[in-house]
């Protein structure tokens, strides 16, 4: 099995791991981390496709590679927005929960929160 295929299989596992984390973790920051894992898996598939398209003296197809650069920068902007949203929620409510029902879980944090 050649190197691009191995990296492609690695990418598949990364997407799987990220998807599992995205579903099960209750903390928003862990969801952002998992989402970044999924993203890097997708980017890796893209890089594998670029590598397989190596021709005309370049080591990889430059079109998907250029898209990857754009994707990494936009992923950072999206993560920054997600982090700003959860920090603001934490400042406002003292809690960092995505749960909508006012059950027993969010009862504790407001006690030490400043909001």
């Amino acid at each position, binding site marked *: 099995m050649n*190197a691009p295929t*191995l*990296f*492609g*299989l*690695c990418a*598949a*596992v*990364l*997407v*799987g*791991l*990220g*998807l599992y984390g995205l*579903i*099960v973790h*209750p*903390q928003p*920051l862990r969801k*952002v*981390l998992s989402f970044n894992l999924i993203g*890097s898996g997708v980017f890796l598939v893209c*890089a594998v*496709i*670029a590598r*397989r*398209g*190596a*021709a005309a003296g370049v*080591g*990889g*197809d*430059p*079109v998907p*590679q*250029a898209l*990857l*650069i*754009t994707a*990494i*920068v936009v*992923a*950072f*902007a*999206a*993560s*920054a927005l997600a*982090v*700003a*949203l*959860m*920090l*603001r929620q934490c400042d406002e409510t*003292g*809690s*960092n*929960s995505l*749960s909508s029902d006012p059950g027993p*879980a969010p009862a504790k944090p407001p006690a*030490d929160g400043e909001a």
Partner: protein
Amino acid sequence: MSDALHLALIALLLALAFWTVVARETFAAVAGFVSYGLLLTLAWVALSAVDVALTEAAIGAGLTGALLIGAASRLRKTEAAARTEWPGRATRVLAAIVASAVAAAIAACVLLLPDPAPTLAPEVAQNLASTGVGNPITAVLMSFRAMDTMLEAIVLLFGLIAIWSLASDRYWGGRPGLAPVYEPNGILAYLARVLPPIGIVVGIYILWVGADYPGGKFQGGTVLAAMWLLLMMSGLHDAPAVSRRWVRLVLIGGPAVFILVGVLGVFVANAFLAYPAGFAKPLIIVIEVALLPSLAVTLTLLLIGPPQRSESPP
């Protein structure tokens, strides 16, 4: 790199990704993710994507890592409460099944990729001469798919506007981030006096060399952003109030020049973002030079978040 090295790299990547998902403390998970990002850089090199490797090291691992570490330490006090909301066993098993199925489907697609692989590399190589730049990635970013790059610069700006909109009313237009603590003899203050002159030269060099070799405005802009962040963290310099006119002019300057050159193309080359023959390289350089300060300031302000203090110094 040999196959054994590739396998070792893949094993490490998967182990760190696994750690990122299963670690109990969010802070430990973030630490794993930063190391993962740095190792991913090697994967891009192994796949002959050196430009992507530079971007990953600067933005994917560097800036994203700094962002997540800051968030993890500020959210630490909410950790225990959030952890009580863990889903039940049935949900976890179901999630594992769904995740494995998706992973298996992607693995199957990777194994069934068409052979020979479709590629646009020959077309890019054929038309490279008309752009005047030597790096095919820069040619794609700035000429063949310049529209994507322009929209990306605008998306970054919109992201920043969205983050600023999260400021509470009394701090609107104020200074972002926490007030810096200045320790004149601290190691950070020392680094912040020594590194920026070197970093600024390196950042501009990375931009300039990007025309012909791996590099470019995003990577160079990130190095400049890192230098500015170092100055702010050391307390030598405070973040500017986001209502300052120079901040806003620098932020929109790069995208505005990009759009202007695009509109110019309608009149002199018959298409939006088309470059007139013989002027492609100078125009590409004009756009990249205009984008460098915009990107550096945008990336820095994205990282430090919405205004949290009033404009006047305490």
